[in-house]
């Protein structure tokens, strides 16, 4: 098998075996109980976007499968009693790229005696149980019931209220974001006096989704980084925007509208296949609102060198590339998860992406990054000024690109 390759040092062999075992354990850990299914509610938006479900839905499965790796095993059993007799405990931690969804229990009458997160296998078996109702209670074993519901990876929290005659689950925000409809679930044990089969189930319904046209209009008015190339998917009140880092659209043929710089951005990733961001649009006001408020940091760049360069930027929410011809200036705005994380910059030559200089700015304040000629032809050096322009300068227009390492 090793094609006459050298034998491994036994210590490295052990290390690789242990890493494989750790990965197998991570995947076997049934912590992130969310399994893709097709949309269970043919909402207006769902009907509109049905064709995309099969494709993006599997991404939901993959993402959630990995979520099992990311989060600790939830502690089963009742949580600490909060005031008013409401037992509150997050028994579930479901992650999609860092977004967790705790499920909170309001159980003032002690209807629920115990609970645990459902396993992936349990959800796979019963993912269609909810049908058009989007919520179901299925008996797994004596005294053990699986509550499943239609969910979205971007749901941020849920509250399950149990009364002697009903289970009501409210998930925020609803409805599902884009096409990534999933099923989540929790396994419940009820108090002996409860007839589980007779419990009324209610999943607090989503607001009426805004139309795709409305969403596009809002997005175009409010998107901030790069240009809005297209609305990739709209389902319910979420939309996923295709963002183009260079403003020219894929292939450079479709000019996109320039938009104002005040959109709160949840996630930005300006490279290749992942040029997207997700924003939340309030269904009632059609206003774009953020899931997490990220501080904005703006700095200026002045290329005073004699050569054109590409700046590769990396920060704690993404990365991006901006070209500066000799003599060009421009402002760059980053949305940081934590300003103390700062950002990193690499100055790359064109063509060829040679690394000419790099620096990290861990605690950004007012900053103008100045690129000057270095001591040898074709080299540059970086310096900074502790000032920034009063108003943002436009990004420089040029054809500079760097295709990567």
């Amino acid at each position, binding site marked *: 098998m090793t*094609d006459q390759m050298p034998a491994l040092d036994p210590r490295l062999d052990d290390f*690789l075996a*242990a*890493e494989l075992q*750790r*990965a197998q354990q991570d995947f076997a850990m049934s912590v992130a109980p969310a399994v893709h299914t097709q949309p269970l509610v043919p909402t207006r938006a769902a009907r509109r976007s049905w064709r995309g479900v099969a494709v993006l839905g*599997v991404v939901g*499965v993959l993402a959630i499968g990995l979520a099992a790796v990311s989060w600790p095993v939830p502690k089963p059993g009742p949580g600490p009693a909060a005031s008013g007799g409401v037992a509150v405990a997050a028994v579930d931690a479901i992650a999609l790229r860092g977004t967790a969804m705790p499920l909170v229990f309001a159980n003032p009458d002690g209807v629920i005696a115990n609970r645990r997160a459902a396993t992936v296998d349990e959800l796979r078996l019963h993912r269609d149980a909810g049908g058009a109702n989007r919520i179901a209670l299925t008996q797994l074993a004596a005294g053990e019931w699986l509550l499943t519901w239609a969910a979205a990876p971007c749901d941020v929290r849920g509250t399950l209220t149990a009364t002697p005659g009903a289970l009501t689950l409210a998930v925020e925000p609803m409805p599902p974001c884009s096409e990534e409809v999933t099923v989540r679930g929790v396994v419940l044990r009820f108090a002996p006096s409860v007839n589980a089969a007779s419990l009324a189930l209610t999943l607090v319904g989503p607001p009426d989704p805004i139309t795709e046209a409305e969403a596009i209009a809002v997005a175009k008015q409010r998107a901030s980084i790069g240009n809005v190339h297209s609305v990739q998917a709209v389902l319910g009140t979420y939309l996923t925007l295709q963002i183009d880092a260079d403003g020219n659209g894929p292939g450079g043929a479709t000019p996109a509208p320039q938009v104002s710089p005040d959109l709160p951005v949840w996630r930005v990733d300006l490279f290749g296949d992942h040029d997207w961001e997700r924003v939340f649009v309030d269904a009632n006001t059609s206003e774009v609102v953020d899931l997490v408020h990220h501080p904005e940091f703006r700095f200026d760049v002045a290329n005073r060198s004699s050569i054109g360069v590409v700046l590769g930027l990396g920060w704690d929410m993404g*990365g991006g590339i901006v070209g500066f011809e000799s003599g060009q200036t421009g402002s760059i705005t980053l949305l940081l998860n934590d300003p103390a994380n700062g950002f990193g910059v690499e100055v790359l030559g064109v063509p060829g992406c040679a690394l000419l200089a790099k620096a990290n700015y861990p605690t950004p304040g007012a900053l103008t990054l100045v690129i000057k000629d270095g001591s040898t032809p074709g080299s540059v050096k970086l310096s900074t000024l502790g000032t920034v322009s009063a108003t943002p300068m436009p990004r420089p227009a040029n054809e500079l690109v760097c295709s990567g390492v």
Partner: protein
Amino acid sequence: MRDTEVASTRPREALADALYTHGPVLLASARVITLDDDEAQDLVQTTFEIALRRIDSLREPTALRSWLLAIQTREAFRLVRRLRRQVRFDPEVHEIADTGPDLASRADVRRALAALPRRTRAAIALHYLAGLPIAETALALGVSENTIKSQVKTGLARLREVLGDD
């Protein structure tokens, strides 16, 4: 029409199953390549997303595992990840697999691996951990088989040098 629909969904179903069958080896390989748990998880996630979009281009379904590993390896070298590492903090804090008897030894191995170029780690992960033949390892890394052999040989020698002889 119905047959077409069924056929078109099979690769995607296979891919969903692949998460469970090939996910562990992808994750373990990613961890050896990146030496960073967060980046590794992100890498596996991204690999499956890309695979989902390109599944129709997979001509040989039995090669799904090596295809996924190749996607993952190429993705591991993309510029964005290199840039992201610049803003990653606490670089000395790592997760070490807590299975097995000798944690200290594995921490030493991890440090020794960190001293190797990422491409060498990738070659070691693909060949020795994931079990890809040299030819497929070379294909995934976009270099010749001789280059892979040379990189691995040099890397393992360097690793022994850093670890020292017991």
